[in-house]
């Protein structure tokens, strides 16, 4: 009887040892899955530098930054990134001029003024709008918004940055509104109540207590919105034209960094040509731009984080 018991517990110990070592193997496999994220980041950086090194063997970094012409597909190829950066910045500027004011006001309204039921209905709709494929928004920009704008300005070209920027702005409004609203909801209720007790109205409370209190979240929402506009591809590729054009005038057609990458990918350049490899150099610039934005966002949120 006693012997049987010992044997059983020995068996239990063996099985425990087996289960524990199995646990260690599984933990290692799970860790590998977690490392996929690190690996992806490293691979992005490595691939962009590695592939664009071929490009920079033929084009000096100085020409790349200072030349004002971008014509890799022409016989007389010039490789100055400025026109593409200008196009990207112009489209982004139009987009955020729409998205930040509209998104913020909608967020303030939803968070501070809207009845509970309306907010609960609208929030999922805003999140749903974030899932609409961007190629559909491109269709809107080219075939609906541009003709509409042409009725106001008859000499607006068929491809222009204005309509692309406006549609991107409209596209990121739900996103900015939704993230900003979350940030404002996170401001504790007692701060609002303190303000009401001092005789402030809802709007004074919203603008002077809630918005400053939610500043870090709002900054993060704006930065994420800008970063989306900078990286947006299909709307500009469809509606803004694909000719590099050094201008900050939104009514002109121009290519952005992303539109250029699409243009080359669709073309029939041989893969080992400098023209083709130039998309990696363009991608590197795009990644640096979004990286700078993310870093600014990171420090803004740290700098202004309110401790409640």
């Amino acid at each position, binding site marked *: 009887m006693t012997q049987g018991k010992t044997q059983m517990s020995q068996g239990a110990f063996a099985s425990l040892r087996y289960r524990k070592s199995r646990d260690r193997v599984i933990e290692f496999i799970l860790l590998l899955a977690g490392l996929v994220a690190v690996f992806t*980041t490293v691979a992005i950086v490595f691939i962009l530098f590695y592939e664009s090194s071929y490009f920079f063997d033929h084009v000096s970094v100085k020409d790349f930054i200072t030349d004002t012409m971008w014509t890799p597909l022409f016989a007389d190829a010039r490789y100055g990134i400025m026109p593409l950066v200008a196009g990207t910045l112009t489209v982004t500027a139009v987009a955020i001029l729409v998205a930040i004011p509209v998104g913020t006001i909608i967020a303030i309204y939803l968070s501070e003024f809207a009845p509970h039921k309306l907010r609960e209905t609208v929030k999922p709709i805003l999140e749903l709008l974030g899932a609409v494929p961007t190629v559909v928004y491109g269709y809107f920009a080219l075939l609906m918004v541009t003709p509409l704008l042409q009725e106001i300005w008859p000499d607006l070209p068929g491809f222009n940055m204005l309509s692309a920027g406006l549609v991107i702005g409209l596209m990121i409004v739900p996103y900015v509104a939704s993230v900003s609203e979350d940030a404002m909801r996170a401001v504790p209720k007692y701060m609002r109540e303190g303000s009401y007790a001092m005789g402030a109205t809802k709007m004074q409370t919203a603008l002077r207590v809630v918005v400053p209190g939610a500043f870090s979240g709002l900054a993060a929402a704006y930065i994420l919105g800008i970063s989306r506009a900078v990286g947006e591809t299909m709307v500009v590729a469809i509606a803004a034209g694909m000719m590099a054009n050094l201008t900050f005038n939104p009514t002109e057609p121009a290519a952005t960094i992303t539109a250029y990458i699409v243009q080359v990918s669709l073309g029939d350049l041989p893969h080992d040509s400098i023209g083709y490899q130039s998309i990696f150099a363009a991608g590197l610039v795009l990644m640096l731009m979004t990286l700078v934005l993310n870093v600014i966002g990171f420090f803004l949120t740290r700098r202004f984080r309110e401790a409640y």
Partner: protein
Amino acid sequence: MAATALTLEQIRHGLSWRKQLDKVFIAIGLALLFGCLGILAILFFDLVRDGSSRFGWDFFTSFPSRKAENAGILSAAVGTMLIMVVTALVALPVGVAAAIYLEEYAPKNWFTGIIEINVTNLAGVPSIIYGLLALGLFVYQFNFGQSVLTAGLTLALLILPIVIVATRESLRAVPRAIREAAYGLGATRWEVTKDHVLPYSTGGILTGLILGLSRAIGETAPIITIGALSFIAFLPPSPVSGEFPFLNFEWLMSEFTAMPIQMFNWVSRPDQAFQANAAAAGAILLGMTLAMNAVAIWIRYRFRKKISW
């Protein structure tokens, strides 16, 4: 004396003016909210109306064609479905495993911090950058070619942060007490996770996967970058065959086209007739994304109702 300079009348006046401002703000807020939703609703309505002439059996069963009225989305729809299968089969296990590691196993140290920063950061990388990564890595280095496999892997990497974040959230929602009870009975960490934590978070994980796939299905830029063709008049080899071993994986290496690429191709043609095709493809794509989101919301609701702690 100066303190009483404000008369009751003036205070009342100031107050009523400030209350008026409140109402003005509400009006502006409502106008912008419904203005935006309204414009989007009109655009979606127009899209469906422009494409309505093309909806029909032929549109789904025809290959692309030089004549707009003969062109259809057969190869694009099949391509999209195959890519989604690859994406889901890769993103689900890797994403869930990574989330389990971060939530249940990882010690709190700088190393875990690096993984977490990477996940957050990857969510903000523009999708076209993933396309360049895939071109450099999968196409040039691994020689996977411009295939269904390359596209599926690319989109899997793209939606990995979405799956990881959703899974972590649903793992975190499982109360500590359930884990403690299982540990108390002698279960190892993996047994606790597999038998107790995971079953409770299935709903959240599925929701995250479907939301991720609904993002992937509309992604155009990364697939264009790896070099997908827009004129594909054949289907990839069938994954099921009548002869032994009944399954084959040639379709993984097949060239392909996908719904958003087909739509992009039709939009960029100047011919009006093709724009009706683009609208129809866009409406179908939109319908697919909205349907997937609806399913995700329904699953979340079902599981939330079924579980009470």
